[in-house]
């Protein structure tokens, strides 16, 4: 299973939630599969999806799901101690761990070699860390939402990308409709 197949499978769960989606092909895939005003697409700034999502979760009560990648987490590894030490129980970090930098040509990451991001998250102090296979991502995500506890999910999947168009929506439009969705009751 590759990332786009996971996103297709979890789209019904994501639809009603605030979602912050990682830069590059992950955002393009989510946008093509099920564009929603509750989706915040990152068009630049690799690595910051987990930080943006944490700031959002700490500032309002709705659940926030961050769709991140192993490469982006490695880029901003300092995010995991910050997450662990600022617990927001409405925060779920879903790391789609395909062991590669998908948007740049599937170069291998260290997460696909000796480094376990689940173990790193635990060592940083994150309390609810779940590692699952790609096929079980939907169940793990739903369980995390139901638990009402801050959860880090590391979903191990295969490397590969679906061919999707680039997002041409203006960033201020993405941000404005997202903020309206955050404020909607």
């Amino acid at each position, binding site marked *: 299973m590759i990332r786009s197949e996971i996103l297709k499978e979890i789209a019904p769960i994501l639809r009603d939630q605030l979602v912050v989606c990682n830069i590059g092909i992950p955002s393009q895939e989510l946008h093509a599969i099920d564009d929603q005003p509750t989706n915040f697409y990152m068009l630049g700034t690799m690595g910051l999806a987990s930080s943006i999502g944490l700031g*959002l979760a700490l500032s309002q009560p709705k659940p926030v799901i961050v769709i991140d990648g192993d490469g982006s987490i490695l880029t901003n590894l300092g995010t995991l101690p910050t997450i662990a030490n*600022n617990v927001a129980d409405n925060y779920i970090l879903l790391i789609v761990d395909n062991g590669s930098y998908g948007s740049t040509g599937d170069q291998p990451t260290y997460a696909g070699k000796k480094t376990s991001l689940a173990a790193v998250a635990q060592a940083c102090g994150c309390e609810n860390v779940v590692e699952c296979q790609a096929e079980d991502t939907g169940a793990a995500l739903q369980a995390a939402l139901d638990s009402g506890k801050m959860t880090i999910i590391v979903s191990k999947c295969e490397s590969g990308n679906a061919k999707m168009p680039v997002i041409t929506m203006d960033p201020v439009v993405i941000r404005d409709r997202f903020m309206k969705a955050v404020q909607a009751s």
Partner: protein
Amino acid sequence: MNIDKKITDDLVANDISFVTTVPCKQLAGVIDEIDAREDIYHIPSNKEDEGMGLCAGAWMGGKRPAIIMQNTAIGVTVNTLATLIQYYRMPLPMLISYRGELREPVACQVEMAVHTKALLAQMNIPTYHFHHQADVEELDAILKYTFMCNKPVAILTDANFWGGYGDQ
């Protein structure tokens, strides 16, 4: 006048309730003051670009954010400022310790000080420089300006403003 308290009071008066910090010796007092205030959620970050991500999320969640950091962070955050804060048009007051200016004891700090204003100017970031203690009187207006125009705004605070480094 207690500068640390005055700065924190201005943040609170402008409804800033989410502050991320990367420490600096000169900023230690204001960071302590922010940490002690119940009106402010203080979230230390490990790197300044991470902190800007936190601030972007907080703002979209309905809170007014601010970041406190050293001027060396301008070198770290050029991409984040351009592709997140400016591209999505978000307000971000940046209270910056301007190391490497007059009364600086550490030579290496000068190496980023000479690039600081040039980088900020290149990025069209409104920039204010507090050199004397009285300059802090403008902070309230600068914060209002930041949230009026939805831009990152830099407030450089040098060693003279903070009263030097003491005996070194």
